[in-house]
């Protein structure tokens, strides 16, 4: 009997110790995140003002700003979203709703799983060799946007498929029973019902694309750019212009990288300022995604 007591005491001690170790390990991540944010805030908050947001980069740290890079980020994201979302959602619909079990489908599935594991810089090399030089798209907003679109395509596809998969088979059967065609089922039922899950995936994918630096450096994005791309709206008919697609660009993370690798401490402060903007945007996007996921989960109970 006392044997039992001794063993039980030992087991409880083990559990207690692991509980502490577990909490400490969990805290490593949380504390780092906190330290990172504090570090950025302490270094960069002083630089965050209107002038910083509306100035071009400069040789003088105090005058330099992030205007061209946040505009670049915005334009790149536009191209990325317009490419990756229709392509990824369509691919997800095909694989989940249309694809038959055959070797082509298998090939596509294995391929997507593999693409998700390819380092982002490899996408940059592909874009450099293929888009920049073979297709002669140049080191442009278009090339950059497409590169990141390819990069996040697997994420969008997987998110779409997962969202579709949560819709019970009964919904499809009910729609078919009403005489809907396959596309009508997809268009009128599956897409609206899976919208929440798909949106979450898309937002997370875009937030990842915003922070991507390496592939854009590889295709030759500029680090110093003192002009803005042409406006998409013009005064002459047809009032829309796609000139900006061919414009050279810089993006926020590249601007930050450029500043952080300078020995001059004043530029490091600028880097922290750019980092703050970057991290606020990505965390905001992630918060939105979490919120949508939470609301979808609350709203829909199959």
């Amino acid at each position: 009997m006392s044997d039992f007591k001794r063993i039980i005491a030992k087991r409880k001690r083990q559990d207690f110790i692991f509980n502490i170790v577990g909490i400490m390990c969990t805290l490593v991540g949380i504390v780092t995140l906190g330290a990172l944010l504090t570090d950025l805030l302490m270094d960069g908050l002083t630089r965050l003002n209107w002038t910083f947001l509306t100035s071009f980069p400069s040789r003088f740290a105090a005058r330099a700003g992030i205007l061209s890079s946040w505009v670049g980020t915005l334009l790149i994201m536009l191209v990325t979203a317009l490419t990756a979302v229709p392509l990824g959602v369509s691919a997800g619909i095909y694989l989940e709703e249309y694809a038959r079990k055959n070797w082509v489908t298998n090939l596509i599935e294995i391929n997507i799983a593999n693409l998700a594991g390819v380092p982002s810089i490899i996408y940059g090399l592909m874009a450099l060799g293929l888009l920049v030089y073979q297709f002669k798209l140049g080191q442009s907003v278009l090339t950059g946007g497409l590169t990141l679109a390819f990069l996040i395509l697997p994420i969008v596809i997987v998110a779409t498929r997962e969202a579709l998969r949560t819709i019970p088979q009964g919904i499809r059967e009910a729609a078919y029973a009403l005489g809907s065609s396959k596309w009508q089922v997809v268009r009128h039922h599956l897409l609206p019902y899976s919208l929440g899950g798909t949106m979450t995936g898309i937002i997370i994918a875009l937030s990842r694309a915003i922070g991507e630096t390496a592939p854009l450096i590889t295709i030759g994005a500029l680090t110093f750019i003192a002009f803005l791309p042409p406006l998409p709206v013009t005064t002459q008919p047809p009032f829309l212009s796609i000139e900006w697609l061919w414009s050279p660009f810089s993006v926020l993370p590249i601007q930050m990288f450029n500043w952080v690798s300078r020995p001059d401490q004043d530029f490091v402060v600028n880097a922290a300022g750019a980092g703050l903007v970057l991290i606020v945007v990505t965390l905001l996007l992630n918060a939105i995604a979490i919120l949508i996921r939470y609301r979808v989960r609350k709203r829909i109970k199959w």
Partner: protein
Amino acid sequence: MKEIPALEHPVAAAADLGMGSPSGNAPSVTKRLSYIKERFIEVLLFLAAFSSVAITVGIVGTLLYESASFFAYVSLKEFLTGTLWTPLFASPRFGILPLITGTLVTTVVALVVALPIGTVVAIYLSEFAPSSVREIVKPALELLSAVPTVVYGYFALQFMSPLLQKLFPGLPTFNMLSAGVVMGIMIIPYVSSLSEDAMRAVPMSLREGAYAMGANRIITALKVVYPAALSGIVASYILAISRAIGETMIVAIAAGMQPNLTLDPREPAATITAFIVQVSLGDLPHGSIGYQSIFAAGVTLFIMTLIFNILGYILRKRFREVY
């Protein structure tokens, strides 16, 4: 429910039957049209799905095409066994080993941080923490992987390096240790999130079996849940390895960019990825040997990650347990 318009085309679903419609009516034009439309949409969707294959073909094709020119100039033997990597010097040397050791050392440092911590966090969240704690901590940890890597690079150089210099006097500002440690912290959620998912998928009946024998939480977790979830856990480890090998900005910023054949994490060194970034920052003429060398480096990187992806696939198959 404005989806009801489906009723307007009650024949659409039967359209697959085509001409041989049992109704015996003359083949209706709308029927044919809607059939064509359905087929057209399916083809479009297929093309979208197939575009992912095109991307892979583009990646492999470009890497092979560009590095073929490189290997026409540099022998494979020099590439794999040479110990100097100076492709941009006047008398260039093309031994990739220094870049590989740089990649391996930063990866190992990152894994030493990420695998144990990530695993402990997964066990803690899945088997110990109350669900209220888990609901908050899990998304918070996932934010770690949402932070842009360039910000981590900044953090490694401006925060981790000075911190580690206090622990290891004489540590240079640029070193693989700081970069690796920060990279490891970034990877923690990859390990903890996926491993936790795998562990939570283990049926409750297995845990009940262990608890009914008188096991405590940690024994149940380590002896029953962990082995039962091994396939998913190993998959998360492999993902972490693959991420660490391919990570670029942290090492490019904080590990220094000089190729350095060393296994000492306290030294600065370039990884394969950092080298590609460094070359890309300059303005190399298309078709020069320097330009081609980043593709040769890229092929090496691609093969390394591919090996781990395949390894992960095999391990997952082998460890797959049937509950």
